[in-house]
């Protein structure tokens, strides 16, 4: 038998984010129940499920914006630190895009992108600005660099938020319902940026209701309900032949119109 050729680091394969028997309660609500999930390098995992199924919470535990009650989460082989500087360093390696954009409201678009570069990565101002402008160019909002976030449309704000996260050169990008707060005509401009990112080999965990994006860009779909991962499959299998009753029920409700 031939020896397997070791895969180069850029190729999908080695586990990057590993959730092992993760449990979490919000008071009496058991919001994550024995969740096991492995995201491999270069993989795009789309998490879907009904409201309150725990999918956003799952996403937020990966950079410890939510703590967990038991189980473990490792990133690139390292368990998430509890608090302090070590946790801040880890978060710098995990990009996060929020439903409500959360751009720093008092800083310009450019400052939003350079802040982390200057204060966390300690990159000098000029260099940080250059990198930020290149990223803003890439997501198509470089002409808005001098404006404050509130002067931009929702779609533009979310693309700036993606640029802000990418600036840190993260190992993995988390998207927590990135298009749920957008007007319909702005959803695609954000999804296009995300699809391009997926095509470039970025490791992504995407919580979304956009089934078209899941079909187009996901390597794997994770279906959650009631705090559990009910089903995991490649998008083709999941959307055409879901195994579980609950996934069939969910899909029938959202795909009928």
């Amino acid at each position, binding site marked *: 038998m031939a020896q397997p050729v070791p895969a180069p680091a850029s190729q999908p394969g080695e586990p990057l984010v590993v959730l092992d028997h993760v449990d979490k309660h919000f008071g009496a609500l058991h919001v994550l129940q024995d969740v096991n999930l492995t995201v491999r390098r270069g993989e795009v995992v789309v998490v879907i499920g009904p409201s309150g199924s725990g999918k956003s919470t799952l996403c937020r535990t990966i950079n410890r*914006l939510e703590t967990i009650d038991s189980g473990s989460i490792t990133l690139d082989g390292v368990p998430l630190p509890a608090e302090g500087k070590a946790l801040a360093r880890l978060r710098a390696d*995990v990009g996060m895009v929020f439903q*409500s954009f*959360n751009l720093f*409201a008092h800083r310009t678009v450019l400052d939003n992108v350079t*802040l*982390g570069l200057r*204060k*966390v990565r300690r990159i000098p101002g000029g260099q940080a600005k250059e990198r930020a402008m290149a990223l803003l160019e890439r997501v198509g909002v470089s002409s808005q660099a001098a404006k404050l976030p*509130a002067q931009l449309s929702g779609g533009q704000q979310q693309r700036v938020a993606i640029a802000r996260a990418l600036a840190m050169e993260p190992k993995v990008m988390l998207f927590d319902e990135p298009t749920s707060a957008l007007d319909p005509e702005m959803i695609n401009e954000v999804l296009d940026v995300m699809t391009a990112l997926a095509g470039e080999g970025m490791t992504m965990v995407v919580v979304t209701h956009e089934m078209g994006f899941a079909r187009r860009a996901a390597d794997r779909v994770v279906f959650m309900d009631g705090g559990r991962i009910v089903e995991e499959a490649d998008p083709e299998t999941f959307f055409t032949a879901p195994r579980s009753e609950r996934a069939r029920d969910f899909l029938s409700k959202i795909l009928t119109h």
Partner: protein
Amino acid sequence: MDLLADNLPAYLSGFLFTLRLTVISGAIALVVGTVLAAMRVSPVATLRGLAVTYVELLRNTPLTLVFFFLVFVAPQFGVRTPLGFWTAVIALSAYTSAFVCEAVRSGINGVPVGQAEAARAVGLTFGQTLSLVVLPQAVRSVIPPLINVLIALAKNTSVAAGFASVELLASGRRIALANPSDAMLALAGVALFYLVITIPAGLLAGVLERKVAFAR
């Protein structure tokens, strides 16, 4: 009116004393109050406890008692504060910082939680999140109540008159005692000079508010 003109040097010296008290105590109170507010929202329980204790103690004590404590009680425990101006500065800034803290804290609570989450997600530490993202937004939203606190401070400096400081009120009282028939006028002069501080402060608040405004 001759009374005011004749005693202008005395009024002016009292006014300048009051102005110095207000500006220096105000500056110290703004810094200490902001630090206290940061302590009150910090993840460290000990810091939160210290700040809460300080704020509740100082803001619920009459200012006169704070002066009494510094001037008469503290020396019995070996703490001697220099009399006059600096005693007044310590008492006034200690007292006012408790109110600054609460104003700033209400501003911090008004900053959407997503702002701090985004800052932490970028990798900023707690201190950086507070100083670079949360406090700049918090302070801008509480300029009117902060100016209220500073206007109250300007008037509270009159308590120092009872503790060996010849500020505006003490000057006016001397003038009134020397001219008993015109006492009302002498005290009206005092009120007038306070307005010279407090009215511009109110105008400054309006200008500042427009200047640092940003939309959400």
